[in-house]
């Protein structure tokens, strides 16, 4: 009975040899990733490569069982690989980096694997890997957890539903006027404190000089048309600049001015906008400014020792205590700013957390909203998704089990004629309170949704090109080539999906003579090609071309078009065509649109600036999969407020 005896009994000797020669890509070394790594090793897959961009945090230790206290701040992927070495009989390789970075992980790198496991914590990366799997036709094991909820979904390109075939819940957004003028929930005050106040005061922001006008000269969107309110917001913003100056000056005696402005003067001005309070349809609750007396009282106490309650993070403090803490913490942050120059909000940086929470609570008090403890507020401010070991373990177990059938390695459960729709997905049922008589729900995989813009509405291929050729190949050359090879007309439109930049269409040929290189097309760029319909209401299917630049190629003139067929399809209606085949095209200028606040900002640092993820094109996919309740996430970086 050797070490692999159990696996061999389950899959058989022949399939076991296939397992030993399989190469696995595991993306994510967090909650699900740690568990998956363990399971994949124990299945004894030959090679497992692990990618993660994160470092270890204390709050990971309750579930990411490969990490210990003295690993905090180390890279997850590398630490995980070291932690499993004692029981591993697989070749293990770790990568520290963002999976969406095409320089580190170009598409030909992905093509080395037999299957991809997603153990990711955010939507953009999931979508990106889904697209890569579609480009390569490589199976993808998708999974996610959020608290007691979890799911797995095997994705077999062109045969079963892809990740984007079903609509995913997008992060919750709030209208700006609610945040600025009429909050009615604790989260509104936290967003105000974090996204407006904290950023204005402590994060190195260039003072917006043309705040009133967009770069294209049109009037800025204030999130309201009420002129009085716009006037007030403008003035408030310029006053915020004054506050910034107080903070930069580091004058503790002026903290009282900050308090007076934010919690008395601004509120009094708000009360003058009668529309907000008299319109009964709005049903807004009138705020009450903080009394000057309390502010003065607390200011005199600012150098005294902390009251013991400041240690009780799970208790809600009184308004006096909130104000006192606000004064003290502002002073601390002002001091830090002298050396740090700019402070980012970070839920694990207690100073920044306490500032945001106390400011939010004082504002809540003013608007008659319930105040919250530091502990409770942290979840709202830090976009924390609760996560536990058990759900991750179950989901990872299911994902690795299911992969054996995707790779057709279970001898008693062989797929007949490659019928992948006989496979099951699974999501938690009992723990998610959907059912008392099923622990899991396990529907069979569906075929791709015909409306999905990621897998069904386009054909995909990889255009291999040498660095030299990229510089000499003109856009018109490419268009001619595509037309010759696939039967497109010469009036196709070409869009760079990175920023939805239109490069050519039937009445736009200004860029025809530019080379791809001049058009900033580079390794990892994805071009969206679509054609006009012909007189018979037929249209050639749209195409996404992944640009794979072969830097080592000796053939300087290398250009290799994908060997695919692009069929003619019937155009149903003009409206539906608009709806599904064309990604939304935006102007190049970034607008200063502030109409909504998207609470999704913690994801941004994960992107490499000049390497933005593949565009998310349109998401007007109405086949809502009720079963996948939401895109669940293990880690802490996406907000999902129910």
């Amino acid at each position, binding site marked *: 009975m050797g070490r692999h005896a159990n696996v061999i009994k389950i899959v058989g000797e022949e399939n076991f040899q296939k397992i030993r020669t399989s190469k696995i890509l595991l993306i994510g070394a967090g909650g699900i990733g740690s568990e998956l790594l363990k399971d994949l090793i124990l299945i004894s897959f030959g090679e497992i490569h692990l990618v993660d961009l994160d470092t270890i945090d204390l*709050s990971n230790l309750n579930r990411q069982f490969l990490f210990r206290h003295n690993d905090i701040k180390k890279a997850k992927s590398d630490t995980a690989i070291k932690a499993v070495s004692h029981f591993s009989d697989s070749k293990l390789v770790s990568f520290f980096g963002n999976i969406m970075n095409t320089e580190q992980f170009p598409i030909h790198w992905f093509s080395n694997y037999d299957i991809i496991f997603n153990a990711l914590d955010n939507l953009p990366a999931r979508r990106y890997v889904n697209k890569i799997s579609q480009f390569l036709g490589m199976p993808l094991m998708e999974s996610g957890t959020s608290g007691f909820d979890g799911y797995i979904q095997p994705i077999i390109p062109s045969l079963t539903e892809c990740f984007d075939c079903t609509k995913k819940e997008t992060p919750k957004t709030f209208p700006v006027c609610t945040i600025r003028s009429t909050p009615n929930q604790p989260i509104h005050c936290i967003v105000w404190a974090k996204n407006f106040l904290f950023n204005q005061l402590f994060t190195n922001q260039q003072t917006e000089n043309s705040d009133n006008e967009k770069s294209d000269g049109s009037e800025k969107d204030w999130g309201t048309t009420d002129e009085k309110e716009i006037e007030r917001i403008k003035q408030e913003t310029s006053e915020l600049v004054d506050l910034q100056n107080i903070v930069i000056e580091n004058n503790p005696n002026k903290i009282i001015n900050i308090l007076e402005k934010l919690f008395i003067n601004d509120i009094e001005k708000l009360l003058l906008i009668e529309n907000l309070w008299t319109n009964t349809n709005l049903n807004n609750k009138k705020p009450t400014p903080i009394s000057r007396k309390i502010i003065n009282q607390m200011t005199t106490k600012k150098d005294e020792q902390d009251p013991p309650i400041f240690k009780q993070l799970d208790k809600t403090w009184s308004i006096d205590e909130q104000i006192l803490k606000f004064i003290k913490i502002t002073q601390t942050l002002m001091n830090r700013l002298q050396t740090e120059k700019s402070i980012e909000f970070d839920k694990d940086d207690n100073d920044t957390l306490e500032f945001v929470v106390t400011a939010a609570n004082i504002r809540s008090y003013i608007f008659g909203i319930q105040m919250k403890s530091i502990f409770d507020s942290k979840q709202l401010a830090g976009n924390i998704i609760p996560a*536990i070991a058990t759900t991750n373990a179950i989901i990872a177990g299911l994902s690795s089990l299911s992969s054996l059938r995707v790779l057709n390695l*279970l001898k008693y459960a062989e797929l007949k004629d490659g019928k992948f729709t006989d496979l099951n997905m699974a999501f938690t049922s009992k723990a998610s309170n959907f059912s008392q*008589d099923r622990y899991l729900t396990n529907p069979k995989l569906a075929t791709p949704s015909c409306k999905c813009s990621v897998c069904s509405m386009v054909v995909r291929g990889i255009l291999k090109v040498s660095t030299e050729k990229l510089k000499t190949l003109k856009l018109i050359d490419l268009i001619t080539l595509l037309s010759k090879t696939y039967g497109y007309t010469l009036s196709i439109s070409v869009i760079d999906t990175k920023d939805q930049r239109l490069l050519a269409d039937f009445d736009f040929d200004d860029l025809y003579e530019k080379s791809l290189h001049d058009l900033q097309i580079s390794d990892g760029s994805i071009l969206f090609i679509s054609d006009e319909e012909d007189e018979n209401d037929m249209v050639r299917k749209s195409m996404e071309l992944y640009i794979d630049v072969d830097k080592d190629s000796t053939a300087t003139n290398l250009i290799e078009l994908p060997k695919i067929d692009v069929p003619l399809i019937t155009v149903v209606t003009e409206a539906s065509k608009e709806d599904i085949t064309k990604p939304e095209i935006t102007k190049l200028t970034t607008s200063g649109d502030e109409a909504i606040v998207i609470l999704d900002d913690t994801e941004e640092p994960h992107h490499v600036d000049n390497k933005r993820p593949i565009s998310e094109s349109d998401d007007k996919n109405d086949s809502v999969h009720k079963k996948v309740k939401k895109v669940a996430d293990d880690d802490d970086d996406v907000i999902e407020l129910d």
Partner: protein
Amino acid sequence: MNQDNKNSTLSADEIALYDRQIRLWGMAAQARMRHAKVLLINLGSIGTEITKNIVLSGIGSLTILDDHEVEENNLGTQFFLDSESVGKLRLDVTQARIKDLNPRVKLEFDTANFKNKDEKYFKQFDLVIGTELTTNEIFYINSITRNFNIPLYVCGSNGLFAYIFVDLIKFESVDEKLKGTRPTEVGKSSNNKEIVDVVMYTDEDDDKKIYEKIKTVHNYKMFRDVLATATLKGKLNRRQLKRISSAVPLTFAALNIAKDTCEISLSQLQETLEKATDQLGVPIENVNKDYIQQFSNQLGVEFAPVAAVIGGAVSQDLINILGKRTSPINNFIIFDGTTLDMPIFEF
């Protein structure tokens, strides 16, 4: 259980470490977990998963009873082992790695066989989990847990298939859910459950959301009775019976033969299978022939991904009952690792 322990507030360090899970089940439940004393019998593949999960989550104390030596094939299913472990006592070689998971948990390792323990020994525990037990061993431990009124979880696996049996004797749970169009009614809600109280309340942040707090009394049966009387007759319609995994009657057949051993021949299995299908009310022609062969080949075989699913489910339920969060499993799960089918039966 030790729920009346005075010293039940958590330190700031504990709050930081357990941050993500406290957000799920609350401070009170976390504090109750810290006072729970759990016994795990046998540290095989499922035992390893359970140990990992409950030690990480901050259980108060865990005692592991295991007298097995490490065999080479264990290396492929148990991640606390390494290649040097073969031939040594499991607990001797895994202790250090288990302790290292979470220094806050009080751990005891005992290399005695649980059957050699005096009955009174079990009295000290708030909860017992038995893994990799023969049917006679389950009978034995179940009689002890009933004597001392201790909740019991039993689980085991046969390759791609696995089961969980739960005996909480009598258990009161409180579930909270959004009120549906019809209010939940007090009274017997299923075979083993009775709703005794329903309280409505409004969300503190959103007064349009109305919740129900439902108090349910769960009654449980002993393993011996479940094995002797379990049936699906009258509970499932023909279509549901047709869809039921062949792993269900096969698991019952195996448990009925394996009184003292895991060694079962194919013909033995086929023979008992007839009795099992009869009792369960599953037509024998519904049992897939390939499954019988497969099940027979995989009897007693450990498989890590299956252990992860079963260990995860048992740990989660255990944490649930300590936190009195939602209704526990009542009372039998059979998992089919090929279809990921995992029904909960109320036998």
